[in-house]
């Protein structure tokens, strides 16, 4: 826990310092656009994420007394770096995207907001590539996120029950709800699109990219941002605002949920944890899972 706090505090301090520097250098000094002078950080972040993932030893979920380890340190790190990066990117991206309808920003603020966007890009790329490579090293974590044949049935049952329809029982959801798994696909496509088009836009600060490519990349980037926004709002609503998500939110800091919670909300997952032998998707040749 002490090590986790230390890493978290270090990353938070770097992020906040970066934001202050980004704002100051543009808004107060009015001299520098970080996409021009610090472009190499955009290149560095994905490699740093991959390296960190390669050096990380993951811990699989396990029942420990009356609690269940749901999120190991790596899950917490990738979630918050990706999530906070995404939040800042969406806010600054919307402000920059609304420059023409009419502008929400004064002229000098555009520069400062672009710099803040840059800092969030670095954080977001690190978190996303850390997650992506972690997933590459442990495919069962990816498979857990994909919808199954029960997707529609479980979702109707789950939310039918939450809405008070007594004919439905809580379905035996796995580690993730089937509704979350469907939303994951949207997030996956939107994130991949935003990264590809965003890297093109960042590259345009360093090398010459044809105008037609830039025009298309900008439009696709904007549309994908709206997809991410939709996912982000739903995610925050269900995971942080509605009380039903609070145990999971707590777990994103402590790593643990209670056994009662796991039994009640994720009966399918709990069954797998109790009887690991029935796990059908554990890849035999994956030598890297902890």
């Amino acid at each position: 826990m002490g090590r986790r706090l230390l890493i978290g505090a270090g990353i938070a301090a770097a992020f906040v310092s970066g934001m202050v520097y980004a704002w100051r250098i543009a808004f107060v000094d009015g001299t520098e656009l970080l996409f021009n002078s610090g472009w190499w950080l955009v290149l560095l972040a994905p490699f740093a994420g991959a390296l960190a993932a390669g050096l990380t030893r993951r811990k699989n979920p396990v029942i420990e007394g009356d609690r269940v380890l749901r999120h190991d340190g790596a899950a917490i790190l990738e979630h918050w770096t990706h999530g906070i990066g995404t939040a800042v990117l969406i806010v600054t991206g919307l402000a920059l995207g609304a420059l023409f309808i009419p502008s929400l920003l004064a002229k000098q603020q555009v520069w400062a907001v672009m710099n803040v966007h840059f800092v969030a890009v670095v954080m977001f790329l690190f978190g996303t590539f850390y997650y992506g490579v972690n997933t590459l090293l442990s495919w069962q974590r990816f498979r857990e996120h994909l919808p199954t044949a029960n997707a529609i049935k479980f979702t109707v049952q789950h939310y039918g029950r939450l809405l008070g329809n007594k004919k439905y029982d809580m379905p035996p959801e796995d580690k993730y709800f089937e509704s979350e798994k469907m939303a994951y696909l949207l997030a996956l496509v939107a994130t991949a699109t935003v990264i590809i088009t965003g890297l093109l836009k960042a590259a345009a600060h360093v090398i010459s990219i044809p105008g037609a490519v830039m025009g298309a990349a900008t439009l696709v980037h904007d549309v994908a941002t709206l997809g991410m926004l939709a996912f982000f709002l739903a995610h925050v609503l269900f995971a942080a605002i509605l009380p039903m998500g609070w145990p999971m939110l707590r777990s994103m800091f402590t790593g643990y949920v209670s056994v009662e919670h796991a039994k009640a909300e994720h009966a399918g997952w709990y069954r797998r944890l109790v009887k690991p032998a029935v796990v059908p998707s554990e890849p035999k040749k994956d030598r890297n899972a902890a």
Partner: protein
Amino acid sequence: MTDKEPKQVTRREFVTSVGGVGVGAVLGGVFLKGFLLPDQVLAVPASEGYLLVDTKKCAGCSSCMLACSLVHTGETNLSTSRIQIVNDPFVAFPNGVTQEQCRQCPFPACVEACPTGAMHVDTANGNVRTVDPAKCIGCERCIGACPFSPARVQWNSEEKHAQKCDLCADAPFWSDKGGVGGKQACVEVCPMHAIAFTKNVPLQNGDAGYQVNLRKGSVVWKAIGMPDGDNGEYASTPG
């Protein structure tokens, strides 16, 4: 002696090495560029064409602005003209009207300020300084960077991008050839012949190189009793 099986590289070893080499390459490159290579400077070729104006001759009719807008956008809209006519009612004739044209600066501050390369030197069209609208992100740094007032780069509020004079190199609504090897709509349409085109780099000292006397030697101008001196005075006896 027994044959050992060759050691297989695991997926984890592979991605760790890719990450490590990537981090090393980027940091090494930054170090190399930052400490061992000389700083880059912006060096751009001079434009091969320039607009000259005679503010003493301009009648302020704004025909040049309407023509500029028309050939570039297909509409007569003073707001989308690259050249600007400024009327100052508190200044006496013949100094109350001025034409503010882009100077195609030898060192274009607007090009240097642009973060995306949208404002660029068009080497295919006589090195005219111009905007690629598809690359413009609307930050308006180019407008702020222009050393002249009013800025010779404007915000095109219709099409949402920066715009500036390209000497009609890209004038899609004009059938004549524009650019440094062709015509310029403002020069063609001005009823006072108060705008001229030159391929010679004007004197880069204040306004003198770009605001010239286009009246001198004009028999008509002299005949109607208008001043023909460089500073708006009667240099010769009115005919």
